[in-house]
């Protein structure tokens, strides 16, 4: 379980995130929604070490992770994707996924330098696994295409495959459905939920597409101006007057 307790992040007097407490238990899918600028991506950056909390703590199980560097947090099993693609553009889709296996790659440097056959076989096995993972996301035919030449929807799925290749405990997705059409969105949702369930990965989903979030998540937390204004099941959140106010504004005001 990842637990944020009283987390505040200030950027020069502006509270990007204010006194946020949030729990992502194992094997759950939690949605994090809110209007633009609510601080959702900042929460992801705090959880992955790209930003350090001004106050408050973030813990993975009992272990504090809020002052660890990004690569150390990744090594503890927290993977993420980004709002705009951060694939390695000059590598093929397959190579991107193989880099995702960095923490588990067992082809030793000495073995590679000497061309030791068992090491080469292990390296080949990594590529086979990467190819299978891309296949699960329907990308078998695009495995050898350069990442920069992939369509945006394909890039999104390769990025998810790369994150899954880390064998993480938790996967944090930053607007995975942005820019996709409804058919692609439905397909992506099904793929994410299937992969997470099969591999016992908990998911934190930031998303603007309400139907996506409502259908995918067991629980949803709502941020507005950096503060959590509601949390509960999709039905509870949908009915919450403060959520409706945050999204639609208050009638009679303005």
């Amino acid at each position, binding site marked *: 379980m990842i637990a944020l307790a009283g987390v505040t992040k200030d950027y020069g007097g502006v509270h990007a995130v204010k006194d946020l407490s949030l729990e992502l238990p194992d094997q759950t899918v939690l949605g994090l929604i809110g209007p633009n600028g609510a601080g959702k991506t900042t929460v992801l950056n705090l959880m992955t070490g790209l930003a350090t909390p001004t106050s408050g703590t973030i813990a993975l199980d009992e272990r504090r992770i809020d002052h660890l560097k990004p690569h150390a947090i990744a090594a503890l099993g927290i*993977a993420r994707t980004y709002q705009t693609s951060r*694939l390695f*553009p000059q590598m093929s889709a397959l190579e991107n996924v193989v*880099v995702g296996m960095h923490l588990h790659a067992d082809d030793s440097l000495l073995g590679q*330098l000497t061309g030791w056959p068992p090491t080469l076989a292990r*390296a080949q096995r990594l590529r086979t696994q990467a190819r299978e993972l891309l296949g699960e996301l329907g990308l078998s035919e695009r495995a050898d295409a350069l990442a920069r030449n992939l369509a945006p929807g394909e890039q999104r799925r390769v990025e998810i495959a790369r994150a899954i290749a880390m064998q993480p405990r938790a996967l944090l997705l930053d607007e995975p459905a942005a820019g996709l059409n409804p058919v692609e969105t439905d397909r992506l949702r099904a793929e994410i939920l299937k992969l997470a369930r099969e591999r016992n990965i908990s998911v934190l989903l930031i998303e603007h597409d309400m139907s996506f979030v409502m259908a995918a998540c067991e629980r949803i937390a709502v941020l507005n101006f950096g503060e959590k204004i509601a949390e509960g099941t999709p039905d509870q959140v949908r009915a919450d007057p403060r959520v409706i106010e945050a999204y639609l504004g208050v009638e009679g005001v303005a």
Partner: protein
Amino acid sequence: MHALTAFYSAHSALINQIGVNALLALSIWVTLACGQLSLGNMGFMAITAYASVLLVLRAHWPFFPAVLAGTGLAAIAGLLLGWPVLRLRGVFLAIATIGFGEIVRIFAVNLSVTGGAEGIAGIPQLASTPIIYSSLALAVFLLWRLTRSRAGRAFAAIAQDEVAAAGLGIDPAAYKLAAFAIGAAIAGYAGALSAFSSFFISPTDYSFGRVVDMLASAVVGGIGSVGGPVLGSILLTLLPETLRFLQNYRDVINGLILLFVIVFLPQGLWSLVDRRRAS
């Protein structure tokens, strides 16, 4: 056979120079492969060259132990330089590393043990053509294997997107330091080979122009693969020689040819050999 030996004896200096320049271009390529524009390699050359020459001339060490000790010294210097500049990127890193190279050169000018501005003369010709080319072959082979390894994949990932690489559990600082040390060791080793294939060394051998040549060779050859810097060094070393007949216009034509290569083959000469990535 006779023609071949005659050709070699007429051009052995140039042949050796190509091999040394290829190693130097590879030294700068290693850090580029990890996304770092490090331009202090003339400093590492100088450190190994002076150290190994002094060990041979003054301490009467045998050739290889002296060169290897000097190479180790350059690798340590690479780590010591790499640590404080880890946070720097792009032009800022370039300027800081150029500063390091200049510091080394100024030390060489002012120390008495390095012979000051006059340098050290009477260096034995111990770096033969077979030694230079077997070193180059070994370096190319090991670096090629490195690019295919877990560490090589991490280098490429850091070069293309450091944030995303760290998010996958790759420690950028550790790999950048490793790249610095490897680059420094290769530059130093090549510096020693260069010193032991000329009669004397002086601080002017390690001026800024030296690293510009290395960078130009790597970029013209292509930094996408280990073959590029070697190809680039061959061209950049041979071109001025083959253009001798142009006399005063030589440098102009030389510069124009390089300009055309960069404009029309932005991926470098190697992209002509390896079309896989060209499109």
